[in-house]
């Protein structure tokens, strides 16, 4: 009853031609979007686009900027993917990012007092931040499974709590002793995450993030654990009647999701900021949601998606020649991309629904 797979296979494996077609369409659509948005703001379309591109990929500084912005986007985006695929709509990436960074920063003085430094210190910081994020997301997961509290609401509220705790910590218990600014002490240069060229923003984080993306893909699609998480997310009733413990998988998904966002915070702290101040939350946790959606919630697609959005933010610094609000233009583009994707999804579902009538 299984017939031969279609013949297009001969030329390219189906996933590759899919990928080509998909990315081609995305690039085309995005180009149009960009041109329209720029034109709406009365910016010169071609020279602005060129500036954007140059700012993102033009030189080693641009590439460094792109990579450093893609890193938190990718990690938080993966966090969104893992949670959402398990049916947990984690909107709290930002709070988990912050709590991850905070725990990493809290561990650092302890390491220093034990004279631990270099790569061991960095590993400790990153592990601590993953734990910090996992705890923060775990609270929401636990509340959902044990008490039925909606994840969207609890994670949004936990974001606010995390921000306020951060404010209190950096202007109180964790404040740098010497200066009077609400900031944690600066990491010494030998404990900073490896930069191949210290003049640029390029750091090891992007490699870690890509590696994590591969691991997450493997877990999701090549392990029983990942399969169970996705089954629970797709149809909890089916999971229940097959005696899978949905609650456990959902809490685990939240822990992983939070750990990824926390790791993003830890990398941001140890590679870019070097300390945690009031401006530590740069909304990466929120900006990662469109990244995940644009990737169709597929861990591997999240890599190009994060690099793409990262390059937009990186390139936008160059727009300051024409406008003070380069970032805003990018936010608008991001929002339109998401709206377009949602519309596309709806359209797809609609055609699927009419398809159901058949037979």
């Amino acid at each position, binding site marked *: *009853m*299984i*017939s031969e*797979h279609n013949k297009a296979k001969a030329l390219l494996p189906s996933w590759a031609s899919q990928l080509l077609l998909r990315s081609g369409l995305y690039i085309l659509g995005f180009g149009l979007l960009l041109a329209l948005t720029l034109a709406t703001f009365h910016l010169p379309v071609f020279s602005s686009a060129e500036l954007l591109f140059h700012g993102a990929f033009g030189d080693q500084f641009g590439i460094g900027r792109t990579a450093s912005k893609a890193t938190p986007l990718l990690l938080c985006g993966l966090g969104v993917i893992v949670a959402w695929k398990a049916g947990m709509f984690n909107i709290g990436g930002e709070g988990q990012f912050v709590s991850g960074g905070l725990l990493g920063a809290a561990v650092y003085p302890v390491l220093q007092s034990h004279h631990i430094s270099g790569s061991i210190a960095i590993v400790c910081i990153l592990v601590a931040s993953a734990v910090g994020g996992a705890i923060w997301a775990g609270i929401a997961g636990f509340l959902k499974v044990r008490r039925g509290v909606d994840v969207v609401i609890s994670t949004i509220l936990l974001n606010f709590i995390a921000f306020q705790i951060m404010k209190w910590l950096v202007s109180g218990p964790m404040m740098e002793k010497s200066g009077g600014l609400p900031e944690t002490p600066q990491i010494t240069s030998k404990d900073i995450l490896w930069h191949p060229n210290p003049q640029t923003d390029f750091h090891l984080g992007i490699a870690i993030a890509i590696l994590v993306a591969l691991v997450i893909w*493997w877990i999701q699609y*090549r*392990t*029983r654990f990942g*399969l*169970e998480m*996705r*089954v629970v997310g*797709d*149809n909890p*009733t*089916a*999971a*229940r*009647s*097959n*005696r*899978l413990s949905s609650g456990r998988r959902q809490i685990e998904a939240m822990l992983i999701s939070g750990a990824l966002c926390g790791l993003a915070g830890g990398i941001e702290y140890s590679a870019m900021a070097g300390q945690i101040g009031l401006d530590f939350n740069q909304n990466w946790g929120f900006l990662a949601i469109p990244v995940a959606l644009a990737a169709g919630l597929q861990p591997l697609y999240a890599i190009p998606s994060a690099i793409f959005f990262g390059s937009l933010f990186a390139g936008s610094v160059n727009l300051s020649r024409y406008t003070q609000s380069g970032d805003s233009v990018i936010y608008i583009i991001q929002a339109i991309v998401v709206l377009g994707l949602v519309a596309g999804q709806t359209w797809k579902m609609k055609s*699927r629904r*009419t*398809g159901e*009538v*058949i*037979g």
Partner: protein
Amino acid sequence: MKSLDVRSISKAFGATQALQNVSLTFKGGEVHAVLGENGAGKSTLVSVIAGFLKPDSGSIVSDGEELPLGQPHLTRQMGVAMVHQHFTLAPSLSAAENYTLGHLTKLGCLVNPRKKEAELKSRATEMNWSISAREKASALPVGMQQRLEILKNIGSNSEVLIFDEPTAVLTQDESAELLQSLRHFSASGKVVILIAHKLSEVLSVADQISVLRKGVLIGSVNRSEATSENLAEMMLGEPPRFDKVQTELNLSEGLRLDSVSVLGDAKNRAITNLSLEIRRGEIVGIGGVDGNGQYELSEAVTGVRKIKSGQIRFAGKINPVLAYIPGDRRAEGLALSLTLWENLLIGKKRGDGVHDGYLNLKVIRSWARNLLTKFQVKALGERDLASSLSGGNQQKVVVARELDRNPELIVALNPTRGLDIKASEFVRSSLLKASNDGAAVLLISTDLDELAEVADRVHFLQGGRLSEPSDIKAMVSQ
């Protein structure tokens, strides 16, 4: 509208010819049943008539006037109404509000809720139905939801009424009542089109019966000429075989329930003091109307729901190798947005490429392919999404997954609900085969014919209590 002429309609989906040059005349004042297996093209045909699908060629003429094709709104305005197989009610709105949704004329036009409520009530009375107009749709019993669905979709100006498998979710009593109401509609001169695959229903209500097979109109017969044998032959292309395997009970100890009590979702007593024994190789049927504890019983036996008191054991153990075949495969059986091989893996512990930590895809895929072939699932390949299959094939996937683990105990809850004859027969023969192989089978079903065909003995469940075994064969032949 006196009649509706379908003239040489053809429609293809990709390589599948869903309808091939179908011409039919539906007359006013008649109940015209369109019969066929799943995938025969019945739903496609009525979707074309109602304008949801645009045919590749052909036309539809009503009283000399051509209907617009592929434009459901216009078609509806011209008096063609369709009641879908799946309910289209908004669960959290009241019955009256749902009714209003189906009868909005223009966007922005004011709605008088009182007037709509009165309208719903008067139309229900006209049909001799009672509907609690202010109750939330989700709180209504299924039979009443169906009536609401009908009144919602059928306007006072509707002249052509299409019912797409309306009895799929109803109990036998509810079905009988519904079929009576079809006669009520046709008596007022309307064209009534009934899509069905149950022969008994069609024979009880239709005036004219047309049979489709693989997109081709096999024939159209008058009720007086129709018998269940010749209709089944038209549908299937060959006389149906009901080769019941004679079970040789090997009667070693199997499932044993000792005065089990179970609470329902609302902490009500769903099952009270139930004792039952099923030996290996035995199929025990549980009949009765839905909502009398069937669901809770199946959940208790499968271990998903905790029991309040009593004991459930399988040959002394707590955890036998268990298969569970639910009736609602979409809601309970499958993860629809996942692939077939992934669905076949749900609940699988080890073996065939499943290791403790990781999945060996090469082995799993070929295992899945074999399984799909063995259970006659019609699919392009194991990487198809579960949502892309028809209902019958989805159920076969569930059966394949559950029976592949060589279960000691099988719990089936309405396993053939909504399936066509061939698929139902396949599911039943799979159950028979598994019981021959030594599984104890608990078959809970509202379908008496099914229980009579498969079960060794049948109890009835009413108000959470189990009756003494009944002579089901005598009941069915009556």
